[in-house]
Structures are given as C-alpha cells and as structure tokens.
C-alpha cells in the first residue's frame, strides 16, 4: 500500500518527495498556529464587546 501511495503521489505531483514533506509539514504547522491565532482573535473581540456592554450599562 505504501508503494501504491508513493506511486500515486509521484504521478500527481511529478516531483521529489521533498514537495510532499514540505506541503504536509506546512499544513501540520498551520493547524495549531491557526487555531491559537483564531482563539486569540475571538478572545479579543469578546473582551471588547464585554467592555462596551459594561460601558453602555453604566
């Protein structure tokens, strides 16, 4: 099966294994980094909304 996966990927990409390594590696790094950044952006937005709501109430 591993040979088949390699042949399929070689056929699709037509290039060296480094392309696959770099692409998958990039995706693997992007997921956790993206998740943390998204969480921080949501946290910031919620704090701003809460601050605004508190201000309106006062």
């Amino acid at each position, binding site marked *: *099966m591993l040979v088949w996966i*390699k042949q399929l990927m070689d056929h699709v990409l037509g290039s060296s294994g480094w392309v*696959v*390594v770099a692409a998958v590696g990039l995706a*693997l790094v992007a997921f956790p980094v993206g998740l943390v950044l998204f*969480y921080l952006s*949501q946290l910031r937005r919620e704090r701003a909304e*809460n601050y605004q709501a508190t201000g309106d109430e006062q």
Partner: protein
Amino acid sequence: MAAGPVRNKPRIFYGWYMVATFMFIALVTTGARNAFGVFVIPMEEEFDWNRTTVTAAGFIGAVVAGVIQPFLGRIFDATGGRKIILVGLISIGVTLILLSLTFHIIFLILMFGVFASVAAGGVSINNTSAMLARWFRRRRATVMGLNAAGASLGGMVIVPFAMFLVQATNWRLTWVALGVLILVLALPLAFIFIRESPAQMGLQTDGDEEPSDGASPGGSQHGPGPLEASKWTQPFRSWPFWQVSLAYMVCGSTTFMLSVHFVPYAVDRGVSPGLAATIFGIMLGLNVFGSLGAGLLADRFGRKNLLALVYLLRGSGYMILILPGIFGLTLLSGNLGLWLFALVMGFSWWATLPLTSSLNADVYGTQTLGTISGISFAFHQIGAAISVLFAAVLYDLTGSYTVPFLIVGILLFPAAFSAFSVKERKYSSRYVTSPAVPAASGD
C-alpha cells in the same frame, strides 16, 4: 442584590477548541504510530533483521496498548485527564526521538512495543473522548466522531509524510521529526487548550447559558442516568456494559484481522497486489466519513440502533465477500465483491468508536468513563489479537482465508443483536435522569 457586570456569551463554545486540539493530537499520535510500517524495510536492511522479528514490535505494541488502557483510564479518572495527556505527549515524543538510536531488536521492541504504546495510551481516543463527554451532551457522539476522524486522517497524512521523509533523508531522522512534531506542535496546543471540565472555566456543558434539569425527548437532558457509575466496578454488574463490550470485541476482530490479512486475501482471489492495496487504501480513506457520519446521526437518532446497524452492515459486507465464492456466484466473487466490501467496511470501520464511547458515557456517566472505556477497548484489542492469530492458523490449515473470514463475519450478526438489545431508553441519560434503578441491578 446588585447585578454583576454584563458578560456576553462566547461566540464559540470553548469545547470546540478542545475538539480541534484532540483531533490534532489524534492525527499526529495515531499517524506516528501507524507509520511504523514505513520503517520496517529500511531497518531490516540496516540490521539484517527478518520481517517477523520487526513486526513483532508492532504486534506487541497492539497487545500492550489494549492491556494498559484500563489502568491508564483509571489514572485518567483519578487525576482529571489534563496531566495524563500532557505526560503522554511528552513521553511519546521523547520515545519516538529515542527510536532514532535503535541498535538492537530488543531496543526496538521495548521502545516501540512497550514505551510508545503505554505513552500513546495516555493520549488515546478513549481518554480524549472521555474528556469530551464532560464538555458535550447533545453533540457528544458528533464530537467523538470528529475525534475519531482525526485519528483516521493521521494514517492518511502522517504515513505518506514519514514515507517521503525516509526516502529524502533516512529512517533515524524521520523518527526524530515525528517526535519533534509531537513535542513542538501537539504538546503546546494541549497545554494551551485542554481544560478538564466546562465548570473549570465557569461554563455549562454544550455552551448552554443555564444548567437544565430533567429529561426531554430528543436528547437534551442534563443530570445522571439510572446506571451512573461512581465506581469503575459498577458497570460489570449491569447488562449494557457486557452487551456493548462483547460486541466491541467482535468489532476488534473484524477490523484488525483485515489490517493484516486483507491484502494477502485479495491477492489469493487473483487481484494484483497494487489493486489490492488500492482497495485497502480507499477502505481506510472512507473511515473519515464513516466516523463523522456515525457521530452526527447518533446525536439525532440515538446510539444503539445505529451501532446495531453498523454491525449488521459490516456482517453483510463479509457475506458479500465470502458467500459468492462458496456458492459459485461469479459476478460477486470477482473484483466487484471486493469493491462492495471495501465500501461497506470503509464506512463502518471507525463508526463503532463514537457510538460505543457515547453510549458508555450516556449510560454510565463521566465520573469513571476513562476506566470503563479503557476496559471496553481492552475487549476490542483481545478480539483483535485473537483474530489475527486465528486467521493465520486457519490459513495454514485450510490454505485459504474463507473459513476465518466467514466465522468473524457471522459473529457480527450476534454483535448487532447485542447492540440492538441495549435498553437505551431505560438507561441512557439522554432519555432518563432519575437514579431510580441502582447500578447493581441493571438488566
């Protein structure tokens, strides 16, 4: 009483960050362990080992993972979960890096077969699903399905990644890369996001604004079910545990056997090794859809009927595979039969995990769920180990896989009945919340 400061409900329930974190953990840890096959040939060539010697490490790993899971589940329940997941990630990362120093077969068996299996048990889907069960009730099966899909994707993503890295560099550097991946990416993510319960963050289960009490049809209730277990031994005295776990044992035997014997079986049927591997690869790819679909449907329609349906379909798949050959039906005894089997098997392979885990959580609660899921998983692995040896022995005796495949296929029908006969509406906290029936008397 003065009102406190206004605090808007979070746009995104924090539990979803936990789901994303656990999916990533499952992807890298399951993927790294499944990538073992990539290392077999280069290690054989360097050390002049034979195939049986190297694969012994993989087999021992599967057995250790099953045996250790109930104990790790017990520690998980006792400590809350976050610590064991963090320690598990550190341990598996370090163990994978140490595998780059392999110099003797005993070292490989100890590192991969024992240490990596124990470490992986700490971050297993059983434990992470048990933690997710505390965060979600209405969408419990859905999030468990997502968690299982992460593990399925791990095989599809990490295995080719490791294979190309071995070819571009060498096997030692690839072990280091896999270990670093876990230590540098998964560990910080777990450290940042994992919280043991919504209460720890001042939140309610499912992100609700207020806790709700009492049962309501459709599965949106809170509160313990009648068989809620405060001690991990309590489920042994009730039927649902045995109905689910024994069916899960059949599940293990019907999946693990295929992992080892499907390609040789297909080749025996006259299919080329390349096509056999293609069919197997597609079967594995369909897992992702199977686990996701099962989770979504189970939250809408309940767990046990769907679980029974999955076993029934899988059993029918085995019959499609085997019976046409016995009865001389030429149309299905060729490639068409293999493709149909792959389709049915692919969708049902991991579908049992979110269904079994969520059913256990609904019936026995979350207090001892790590241990209970661990014991269910041990049943699964016992079935897995027995089936692999059973198929090999019967193949040697009869010269074909027909008899072992037929036997495990037939076993799926009683497994389906076992799941179907679980009294979900009587014992699941989705339907009832009154602790009227003591745990010891559940029938």
